[in-house]
């Protein structure tokens, strides 16, 4: 009982801190990003679609969608020969297909803007953006403006970096 209660209190404190100061970027994760969809798959998305974290934060992508499989795949020439939209020198990641309930972790160390997508849902606009550090972090690299072969549905879905930094966690309903 005691340990459980302690961790519940610790979690509550963490949530309060996050709400009070989303821009402090203190947590090193894992920060959870859900892969979601409506029951019949009309819409699919990452939740949150935009996330600001401190360098060294571990992300955990979790497929919360009972009826679909998803990937979290960095835009990078080393993966499916896509345009590079993560900082130079950063390690690209690809979860592979995650079935419902499965998850994948990646740790982002190089400061800057990381764009990623879900392979079967790129044309459905299922992309996400992670901002590691802030423009004031030494070595920070801004968002790529390289569209390459990325479809317009995906390009339109990346949240602005400023909005992510202001919100900390930005959900698709915040972007309307």
């Amino acid at each position, binding site marked *: 009982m005691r340990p459980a209660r302690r961790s519940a209190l610790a979690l509550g404190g963490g949530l309060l801190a996050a709400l009070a100061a989303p821009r402090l970027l203190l947590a090193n994760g894992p920060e959870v990003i859900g892969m979601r969809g409506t029951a019949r*798959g009309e819409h699919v998305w990452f939740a949150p679609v935009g996330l600001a974290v401190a360098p060294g934060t571990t992300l955990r992508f979790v497929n919360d969608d009972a009826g*679909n*499989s998803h990937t979290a795949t960095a835009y990078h020439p080393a993966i499916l020969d896509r345009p590079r939209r993560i900082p130079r020198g950063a390690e690209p990641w690809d979860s592979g297909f995650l079935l*419902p309930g499965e998850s994948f972790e990646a740790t982002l160390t190089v400061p800057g803007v990381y764009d990623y997508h879900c392979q*079967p849902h790129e*044309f459905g606009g299922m992309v996400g953006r992670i901002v590691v550090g802030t423009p004031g972090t030494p070595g920070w690299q801004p968002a790529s403006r390289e569209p390459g072969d990325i479809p317009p549905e995906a390009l339109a879905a990346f949240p602005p970096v400023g909005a992510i930094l202001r919100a900390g966690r930005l959900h698709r309903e915040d972007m309307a």
Partner: protein
Amino acid sequence: MFRKIALVSAATMLGACAAVAHDEPALMQAPPGAPYQQVSELVPLPDYIPGLGALWVDPATLPAGPFLAYDRDGRLSATVYMTPLEALRNGTAYDGLGIGAHNVSSVDVYHNAGHPGVDVPHAHVVLFHDEGARARLAE
């Protein structure tokens, strides 16, 4: 993306000799037998998808199908078609498609953003074969 390309080329090669689903007794209970294969064996999808059940398809008929949808007891409950919106817009027609069973109690048509196997936005056209089919497939 790889898998879709593989499936599409398989469809191109096999298209000429594909059998058409047409209310055959062998289809009423899973497994439907050749040339049908379970979708979850072809692409990374769950064995049972809430709303669509266990899907089987002849790869030669991708992407449109028919996909045969079985409930948890293996009973044929729906026939499903998946038609990419972009292809329709560009003039592709999906005509003369097979149907799992002739009795159709209701039809649902809705948008799907994509999934492995048909990884572009498309329409799902779902023909339910009896009154209870929708409820059985939902779970």
